[in-house]
Every structure is written in C-alpha cells, then in structure tokens.
C-alpha cells in the first residue's frame, strides 16, 4: 500500500529515459486533446455555419445565423424556459416511474422463474411496438393530458431498466448464493443483502439509457399529442415555430432539448460513478 505513495513523492527526482519521457508527454497531450479537439471542432462548425448563411445570403426563416439563435434564446427565454420546465417535469416523472416500475417488476421476476417466463414477453411486446403507433389508443383511453404523456414516456423508458436489472438480479455468484443458504438466509435477506447490490451496476447501466429515452419519450409523446393543442412543452414550441417559419426559435428549442439530454446523461453518469467507485471495475477504469 505504501508503494504508490512513495513513487508519487519521488516522481520529480526520477530520471526518465527517452521512451518513458515520450510516453509521459503523449499522455499529457492526449489528456488536453480530449477536451480541446471537440471544442475546437464545435467552434469551427459554428463559424462555418455562420459563414454559409452570409456567403449564400440565406434568409433567417430558412437558416438563421448562430447569433440570431442566441438572441432568440434570450428574447424568448420566458416562453422557452416555461416549456422546458414542462418537458423536464414529464421527463423526470416518467424516469421516476420507469425506475419504480422497472425495478419493481424485475424484483417480482426474480422471485420465480415462472413469473419471469410468463410476463417477460409482454414487456418485450411493449418495447418493440413503436410508441407513435400506440399513442392513438392511449389518446382514446386516457383523458388527462399529462397522464397521456407520462404513460408514453414511461413505456419508452422502463424497458432498459427492467431488462438490465433482471439480468443483474440473476447473475449473482453461485458461491455467494451457497454462502447465504449455509447461513440460513431468508429469500428477503438474499434479495436485500445480495441480489440487489449485485444488480446495482446493471441497474445503473439501464438507468443511463432510460434517462435519455425518457426525454425522447417526453418529446415524441408531445409531438403526437400536439394536435390537441393544450400541451406546452418544448415539442409544442417546435411544432408551432415550424408552422410560423420561425426558424430561430426552432433552433433555440432544439438546442435546449440537446442540452437537457446531455445534462441528464452527465448527471446519471456521475451518480453511477459515485455509487460504484469503491468496488466496481467500470468505475475504477475511469480513475485511470
């Protein structure tokens, strides 16, 4: 345990040969490049976008210049952020329901192979049928607008959690199960102290996918439901702006949705890292 600490304090005094020095330099350059390169490409792309608009004299209702989009983001902030809030509400509620439903069902499945064999196919049917095709039915059966959207987003998001958690609950080390048996563990104890913690990395992997899907579900559901005109999420703003040829606002709404997706992914990755960092391989690798 003392070895790494010692090399740490002595590293300045260590003389490196040419090969090691090159390797160290390469590592340093890569570390910077990982952030700098995408950033530079992004800036170049935005600049190029701006130039295209200017060179070709494209009108702003077809392709607005980046600064015009930024201006719209500022001017329409009230409208856009109210809509963002609504979309976020649907996204997080459906993600929450997906976690509760996905984990709940997988725990139920883990109780008996028979339950899993009987009901898992239905979950797959729900997953593979496009939500856009199901929506007209939901529209008939569900009156409440928010409930409609939630149901849609939930159907899209719950499956990765269900399938991943089920896999995790079933892939417990055989010897550990024997150990629990030897110690007379009840079914509940085995679930709580062994299966659920063992399934955690799988669940978190599913959660990362479900986070993105619940946003997609929330937006798609609103698109389909948009016809009824009461919804006020970002998707409605996009449809509306599309009808009015208000391209800057369309772009602004799009940027907000992408940013939301990125933030959701980063937050869920961070949670996953924090939960697993002490013991799971996937989290250890990130530390280098």
């Amino acid at each position, binding site marked *: 345990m003392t070895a790494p600490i010692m090399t740490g304090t002595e590293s300045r005094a260590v003389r490196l040969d040419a090969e090691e020095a090159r390797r160290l330099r390469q590592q340093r350059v890569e570390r910077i490049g990982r952030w700098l390169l995408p950033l530079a490409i992004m800036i170049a792309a935005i600049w190029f976008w701006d130039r295209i608009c200017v060179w070709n004299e494209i009108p702003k209702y077809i392709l607005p210049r980046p600064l015009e989009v930024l201006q719209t983001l500022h001017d329409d902030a009230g409208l856009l952020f109210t809509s963002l809030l609504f979309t976020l509400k649907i996204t997080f509620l459906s993600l929450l329901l997906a976690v509760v439903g996905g984990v709940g069902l997988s725990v139920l499945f883990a109780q008996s192979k028979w339950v899993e064999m009987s009901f898992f196919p239905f979950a797959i049917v729900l997953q593979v049928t496009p939500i856009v095709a199901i929506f007209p039915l939901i529209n008939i059966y569900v009156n409440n607008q928010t409930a409609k959207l939630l149901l849609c987003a939930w159907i899209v998001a719950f499956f990765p959690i269900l399938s991943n958690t089920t896999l995790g609950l079933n892939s417990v080390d055989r*010897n*550990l199960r024997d150990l629990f048996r*030897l*110690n*007379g563990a009840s079914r509940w104890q085995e679930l709580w*102290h*062994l299966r659920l913690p063992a399934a955690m990395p799988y669940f978190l992997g599913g959660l990362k996918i479900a986070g993105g899907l619940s946003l997609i579900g929330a937006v798609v559901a609103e698109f389909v439901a948009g016809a009824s005109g009461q919804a006020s999420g970002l998707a409605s703003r996009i449809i509306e702006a599309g009808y009015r040829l208000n391209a800057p606002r369309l772009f602004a709404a799009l940027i907000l949705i992408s940013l939301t997706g990125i933030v959701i992914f980063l937050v869920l990755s961070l949670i996953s890292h924090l939960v697993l960092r*002490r013991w799971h391989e996937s989290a250890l690798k990130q530390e280098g």
Partner: protein
Amino acid sequence: MTAAVPTTLAGSQGSGAPLLALHGVGKTFSNGVAALDTIDLTINEGDFLSLLGPSGCGKSTALRIIAGLSTPTSGGLDWRGGALDRSGIGFVFQEPTLLPWASVFDNVWLPLRLRGVSKAKAAPAVMEMLARVHLDGFAQAVPRELSGGMKMRVSIARAMVTKPRVLLMDEPFAALDEITRFKLNNDLLELWQDERFTAIFVTHSVFESVFLSSRIVVMAARPGRVFKDMPVDAPYPRDEAFRTSPAYAALCREASDVLSAAMNANGGSGHDGPNHDGH
C-alpha cells in the same frame, strides 16, 4: 482397496469422539455422471482431516454433501450428538467469495447479520476475528483494495465468526502463491489449535495436506471413492521447522506414494490410461 480403514489415530491432537459418520454416501448427477460411488468415513471431533485426491474424485462433492448444500443419492450422514444446525458449520470456498461492495467489516459481519445480530452487537466478535487473522486496521477496506491472501483471510474470518464446530474448506489456498500459502497454512493451524474446531480440508496438494492434517483421506477417481485413510503421525504445533524436517519429508513421500497408487487404481470401471503426474 482399503475403504473405511478403522480410524486409530496415533498420538497427535484431535481424535476425539466420533462427530460425523458418512454411511455409503454416493452422488450421481442428473446428467448421469457418478461423482461419488460410495463413501464410508467417520470424522472425529477435533480432527484436521484432509480429503486429498485428483480432479474428479468427488472430494468437493463430498464436502458439499457434508455442508448440506447437496443431497446424497444414496447413503446418509449421521451427526453424532445431534445434527448440527447451520450455525455449527463454517465454509470457506475456493475463491474468497466476498461481497465486493461491502467493507471487510461488513463481510465478516454477514453471517451474524443474517442471524439478526446488529452491527453494534456483532462488532466485538467481528473485530476479534479480524485480529485473529491478522487483519486489524483493515476493517473499513473493501475487497478490491486487498491482496489475494488478505481476501482469503477475510473469508476465513467470516467462516469463523459464528464459532462453528466444523470448518469446511474447499481448496481455499489453491490460487495463492507459495509464500502466501505457507503463511496462511501456519495461521490456519494456529487458529485450529486455539479454537478446537473440527476441520475438513479439500486439497490437491500432498505437501499442504501433510503439513496441516492429523489425518489424510486419499480418494480415487472414476468412480469417486475413499482409497486410503492415512493418519499423519506428527505432533502439533507444527511450524517452519517442521516444514523442513526429515519427518515431514518422509510423510510427504508416504502420502505421495498413496496418491500415486490411488491414481493408478482403476476401480473396475472406465480407465483412461495410467496417470503419473504425482500431485
């Protein structure tokens, strides 16, 4: 074929009253593989008994049957002095088999926790066991921060924390390097002499079985059966001096000869050529 040799033990520690008798225990798996033919064996209170034999002789299967993790196809077990309840048996697997997300303390606490003992109440016993396996100061570490030998120590502490009367070990040190293995052998013997439990130890290694055991049961494969019951006539405590003594060398040679004979003996059924790879 000297199955069920009467167990007269020369000198040495152990050899108390009979604790467990296996009567014609056999096991055939559902795929038709006969893991164990028939085993007759009496294990005495305080024995350090090694089951030594080649792969496929059913020694692990026998251990699982004794642990109650597997039921025999034929024959039965007779626990003298009343059947042990599960708290009377400790089991050490070939792998450390720790909960990777739990601290060393929580791993050792686990058997007590499953019996409803709170953390505070279990703490003295857990800390004592950690000290016994020389892991003081590592209670809050997680398994991945430990070396292979230290993980095995945690595994032993966990098996011993309930103060079992019988400790079953399934090749626990097979994956360790020799230096670590010697150290763990010494510590295990020390623990055994202090706690006076009965040990049943499955191993491939002649040298390990001789160093540890008061008695070696050599098994033969195809079909799995007891080939010879061999007392190890050397006094305890055994230490590094014993490891380099002529007496140890002679005992190793004896056990090695028995094992070779066991591997060459085909029990009348399918025989796939002589097998001379000594240990």
